[in-house]
């Protein structure tokens, strides 16, 4: 009898403990990337709304500058103090997923996966699993200076990259200004957009006649002054591009529509003579500029915390919240219902250049993908060699074929290619 009492008391204690644990608020810390202070109000309001409608969940929003996020997150994961959700881009997520630092969320996302665009879901699917909750995306449009185009006698926007190079040369010749600034600091991405492979059958193939011909076109445009030289080979040449565009020194700028807001605010005279067109599409058929941000869940987030974090992530990335964020940020949503919203659809009739840019971008969301190179061991070091070869070839310091041959030989040796 005494034994029964002890058993009962033990069971009761366990039940009470379980009840106490269940009633304890779940702490969900989520990190965003460089969204303060512009979106402070948006996130604070969102957190308040969610906490009001979800008792038992305690949210903590931490915004981390993009250039330190990866370092801080890696250290936090290693130290076992990672947030429940962390916003990141696709290449980082791929690396984290490969190293087992973030966990798959297939089961947590469940039926809600159909709410996101197929491209966004594909972007966060690695090794057969979904690794994140898609948030916002980007897509490039071509913004061009109508006055410089008219001065150069050009009456249409380019549809392909090669046509863009030809127009750039003509603009330099007729107006003295540069045509555009391609993202040559990310040459691997440029090759992929143009349908030029880096590796086939385990061997580097970027020294093929097609690659050489493509680079020769670039070198020709560079020599003719068609390309903006400032920061041309920087990993991020956008600041130099937009500065030159705003100053009327650049005829074309391939960038997300939000860039036009800066042109409108800083250089209204240039904005007044600007127009937009779809960004030229390379041979791969992928629209450039896709750069998906999503929320990933670090390893070690389990049980009730994982369930609640997923519920919040689905709320954070639902159509209503994504639409509100996109309207504020000038980005593109990845929730299908948000893209179908009149905000994006009705703009097509708008005459304002920014509205036209948003509509142009929205119309191409279906074919947007985040392009990056994955699965090549030691890619950073290999890419550096390719990058240097391309830079030397484009500025005329090295023969294109020789430079690419040397880089390909280095790749093959490092890769142990057959």
């Amino acid at each position, binding site marked *: 009898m005494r034994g029964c009492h002890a058993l009962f008391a033990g069971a009761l204690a366990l039940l009470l403990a379980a009840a106490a644990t269940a009633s304890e608020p779940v702490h969900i810390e989520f990190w965003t990337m460089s969204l303060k202070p512009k979106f402070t109000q948006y996130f604070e309001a969102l957190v308040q709304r969610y906490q009001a409608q979800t008792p038992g969940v305690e949210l903590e929003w931490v915004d981390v500058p993009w250039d330190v996020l990866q370092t801080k997150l890696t250290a936090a994961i290693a130290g076992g103090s990672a947030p429940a959700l962390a916003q990141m881009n696709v290449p980082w997520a791929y690396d984290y997923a490969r190293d087992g630092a973030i966990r798959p969320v297939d089961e947590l996302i469940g039926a809600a996966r159909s709410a996101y665009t197929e491209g966004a879901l594909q972007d966060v699917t690695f090794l057969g699993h979904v690794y994140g909750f898609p948030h916002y995306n980007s897509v490039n449009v071509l913004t061009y200076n109508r006055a410089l185009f008219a001065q150069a006698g050009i009456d249409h926007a380019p549809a392909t990259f090669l046509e863009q190079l030809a127009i750039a040369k003509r603009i330099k010749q007729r107006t003295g200004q540069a045509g555009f600034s391609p993202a040559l600091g990310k040459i691997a991405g440029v090759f992929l957009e143009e349908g030029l492979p880096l590796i086939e059958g385990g061997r580097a193939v970027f020294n093929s006649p097609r690659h050489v011909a493509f680079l020769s076109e670039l070198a020709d445009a560079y020599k003719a002054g068609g390309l903006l030289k*400032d920061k041309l080979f920087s990993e991020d040449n956008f600041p130099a591009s937009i500065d030159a565009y705003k100053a009327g020194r650049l005829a074309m700028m391939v960038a997300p529509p939000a860039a036009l807001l800066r042109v409108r605010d800083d250089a209204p005279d240039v904005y007044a003579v600007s127009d937009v067109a779809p960004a030229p599409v390379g041979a791969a058929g992928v629209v450039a500029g896709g750069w998906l941000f999503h929320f990933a869940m670090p390893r070690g987030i389990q049980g009730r915390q994982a369930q609640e974090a997923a519920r919040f992530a689905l709320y954070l990335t639902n159509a209503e919240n994504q639409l509100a964020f996109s309207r504020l940020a000038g980005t593109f949503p990845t929730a299908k219902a948000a893209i179908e919203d009149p905000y994006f659809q009705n703009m097509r009739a708008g005459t304002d250049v920014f509205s036209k840019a948003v509509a142009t971008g929205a119309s191409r969301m279906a074919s947007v993908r985040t392009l990056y190179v994955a699965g090549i061991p030691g890619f950073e070091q290999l890419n550096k060699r390719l990058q240097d070869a391309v830079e030397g070839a484009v*500025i005329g310091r090295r023969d294109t074929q020789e430079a690419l041959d040397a880089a390909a030989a280095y790749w093959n040796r490092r890769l142990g290619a057959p």
Partner: protein
Amino acid sequence: MGGARSGLVAWCFLAPALVLLVLFAFWPVLWGGYLAFTEYKIITPPTWVGLRNFEDLLDDPVFFISLRNSLVYLLIVPAIQLAALALAVLVNNRLPGIRLFRAVFYMPVVTSVSVVGIMWGWMYSDQGLINAVLQWMRLIDEPIGWLSDDRIALFALMFVTFWRGLGWYMVMYLAALQAIPGEIEEAARLDGAGAWRRFWKITMPMILPTVLLCSVLSTLGAVKVLEEVLIMTKGGPISSTYTGLYYAYDQGIRAFHFPRALAASLVVSAICVLIAVLNFRLLRPRQP
């Protein structure tokens, strides 16, 4: 007994600083040195790989470019030392407004390196002040790519380092010059020694320890240069401005190859030690 007791007291006073030094200087160096021989991604435990990271360095041409550039950077050492010494001699005179002159030369030292980098980035750009002045003077037709031409970018960075460091060494030399007793100069003058002779026979021997210190500091500073590269060129164009320490930074912070970054850091550290020893050997004041 008293000696042992005072030794214990001394260690007690030293202990707080030593603990901090061990925790934040010696331990990271030892741990980093160990990690240079491992495969390590922070989120997984390190595994011993021997010399593989060093072999990777030897297989990377950019690493050799970085070391070569670090050695080329040493060219600014004699230039900055001579200029700083000459400047210190000039500002050591009692002239009206000389304090302002000293302050102006010291200004770059107290200016944030980010501001310096951005400012010189603008000055060097195609539309920048330097090209504008040269074009206005009709010395050039097309802008010079100070930071975009691989043949001159490193020298453009070296000039910024020179400009940043000049005031610092000037102040050190000025302090050394002002510490020379006036009576010695006075006696030499009375004995008929000219300015040139006084400089070489009195001033130089007396400031030689400062020359040694400044040479070692500026040599190590040149080998370890990082900020200018990071802010202004990020190693480009065509890797022409990579330096030893920037290579380590790039491998560690950008590419996340921490062990390779640490291996490169060890090599740069070894070079620094070697150069410091050489400096001490060559410039050590000789005992009469």
